[in-house]
């Protein structure tokens, strides 16, 4: 790892469940190559992957910016989806508004946001109904 700050930006396509996870996979590969410790790479990959899946399930895709600095990895996931009506409720393990067809694909168990919180050191959700949601997550390097 050198001391530079690296920024990686991705566009998550809408309604393409098969391709969901490509951005997270790309970030995981790059972090590994940069020599980031495996435990930290895994935390970032899982948190970002859950977020990416959410963007496909609940919104019409979105953008993800990942900033890697010597101190931390910052992920900003932004969508123009319907927004989250009740963030406290959405954070409860097991609470989900995902449609049934998503559950048959293995998601929508109401664990996405709790998992994102679990694997990151800081997480903040800003959401406005009808406008969209921005999730900011940080994983510390040490």
């Amino acid at each position, binding site marked *: 790892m050198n001391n530079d700050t690296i920024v990686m930006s991705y566009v998550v396509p809408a309604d393409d469940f098969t391709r969901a996870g490509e951005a997270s996979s790309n970030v*995981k590969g790059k972090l590994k190559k940069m020599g980031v410790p495996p435990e930290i790479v895994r935390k970032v990959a899982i948190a970002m992957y*859950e977020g990416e899946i959410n963007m496909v399930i609940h919104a019409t895709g979105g953008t993800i910016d990942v900033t890697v600095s010597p101190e931390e990895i910052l992920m900003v996931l932004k969508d123009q989806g319907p927004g989250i009506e009740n963030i406290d409720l959405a954070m409860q393990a097991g609470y989900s508004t995902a449609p049934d067809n998503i559950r048959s694909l293995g*998601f*929508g168990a109401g664990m996405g946001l709790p998992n994102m919180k679990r694997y990151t050191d800081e997480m903040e959700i800003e959401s406005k109904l009808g406008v969209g949601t921005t999730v900011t997550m940080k994983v510390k390097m040490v």
Partner: protein
Amino acid sequence: MTIEDIREILGAEYVVGEEWKDREVHTACGSDMMSDVLAFMKDQSVLLTGLCNLQVIRTCEMMDIICIVFVRGKLPDEGMIEMAKEKEIAILTSGHRMFSACGMLYEKGLRGGPDYK
């Protein structure tokens, strides 16, 4: 236990990764819900699942899971096979149902992770 031990205990077949058969597996997880799998972080694990789509491989990639056992005779498609090869994830297919497959591996000493907190 190794990937090959799992194959033998379950009478399963390799779909991908016979060349990685000697890799050690330390823990197991059985679920059809990928977010439940993502809530469980352990090294060198095997996933038993009846869900068969590309996101199963993606989930395992994110978790560094080294082997997938598809239960109830499920078979992955070409896209899944390609991705598993690229990410070095072994795939086995077994005719057993989930409960039986998990029980057979547990009986031979394989364990799940700690309780979810």
